[in-house]
């Protein structure tokens, strides 16, 4: 007997993500799902962002890692609520893990919640966590072939931050090629070039964030 079904494989996750989204809307929190490969600079970006916008937004952070609390310790500072999720092997965060972490956060006291996903260019993008948008970080030392190799993450992200621009003289990374191919995959993608080390471009990123939080 053949039974036609037609169901989304990830419907259970999508249901929980929708509940998360409702909670975020209820409390007026703007939520970013920060995605990149390992070592692109997600935690450093968080440190710079929290410091740079101190006094303007109340930040919450959910750190996703397979192991350790290294990132949560780096981001922790007065007035910032941090929750560490250790996936214990899973290569991504999903809606249910975020739902569990929300019990440890007072959403009513937050303006912006940034979820630092597990460093991985494939899996995190499959699982909706209820965020407003995905922000992708790509560092120039990873190479400019990433859009063609990992198209889905470029397709699903609202903003691409090209990081470590200070390293450009030392690596073979063609910014124009990378921009062109990223926009080919996602014509709506916004792109900002930054260096978390020198601070170049961070003002544009802060402006982008202010604008999006204003629209929430």
């Amino acid at each position, binding site marked *: 007997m053949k039974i036609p079904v037609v169901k989304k*494989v990830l419907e*259970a*996750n999508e249901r929980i993500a929708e509940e998360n989204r409702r909670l975020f809307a209820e409390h007026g929190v703007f939520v970013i799902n920060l995605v990149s490969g390992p070592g692109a600079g997600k935690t450093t970006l968080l440190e710079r962002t929290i410091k740079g916008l101190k006094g303007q937004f109340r930040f919450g952070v959910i750190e996703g890692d397979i192991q350790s609390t290294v990132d949560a310790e780096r981001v922790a500072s007065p007035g910032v609520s941090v929750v560490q999720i250790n996936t214990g092997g899973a290569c991504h965060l999903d809606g249910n893990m975020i739902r569990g972490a929300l019990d440890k956060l007072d959403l009513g006291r937050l303006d912006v919640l940034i979820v630092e996903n597990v460093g991985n260019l494939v899996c995190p993008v499959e699982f909706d966590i209820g965020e407003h948008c995905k922000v992708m970080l790509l560092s120039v030392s990873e190479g400019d072939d990433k859009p063609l190799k990992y198209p*889905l993450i470029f397709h699903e992200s609202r903003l691409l931050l090209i990081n470590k621009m200070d390293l450009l003289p030392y690596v073979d990374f063609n910014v124009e090629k990378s921009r062109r*191919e990223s926009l080919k995959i996602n014509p709506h993608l916004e792109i900002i070039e930054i260096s978390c080390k020198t601070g170049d471009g961070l003002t544009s990123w802060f402006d982008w964030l202010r604008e999006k939080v204003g629209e929430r």
Partner: protein
Amino acid sequence: MHELSIAQNIIDIVCDQMRIHNLSRVESVSLRIGLMRCVVVESLSFSFDVLTSGSPLEGAHLEVEEVPVRGRCMGCGQEFPLKNWMDDCPLCREARVEIISGKELDIVAIEGD
């Protein structure tokens, strides 16, 4: 290794359907998976076999139809297959192309008795 999580989600849905339709055995599960999902079918089947071993689903196999990526020109609206991500519109040469299929991840049928 998102294949492992995806396999677990498939199993949860199939178990629900087995209850609903009173099935005691499942022969196959048909899936449609878009190529943008970067799902490695061999790895998905392997994960599915490992997770179903010793359960009522043991022995069931996955039949995967891979859905090619298609785009729609943002200039003239022409729809066409995207072989690689760099294709321009074959009709008007517009460079901006929106992806309209290739992200599917659906169960479409379950065969069993």
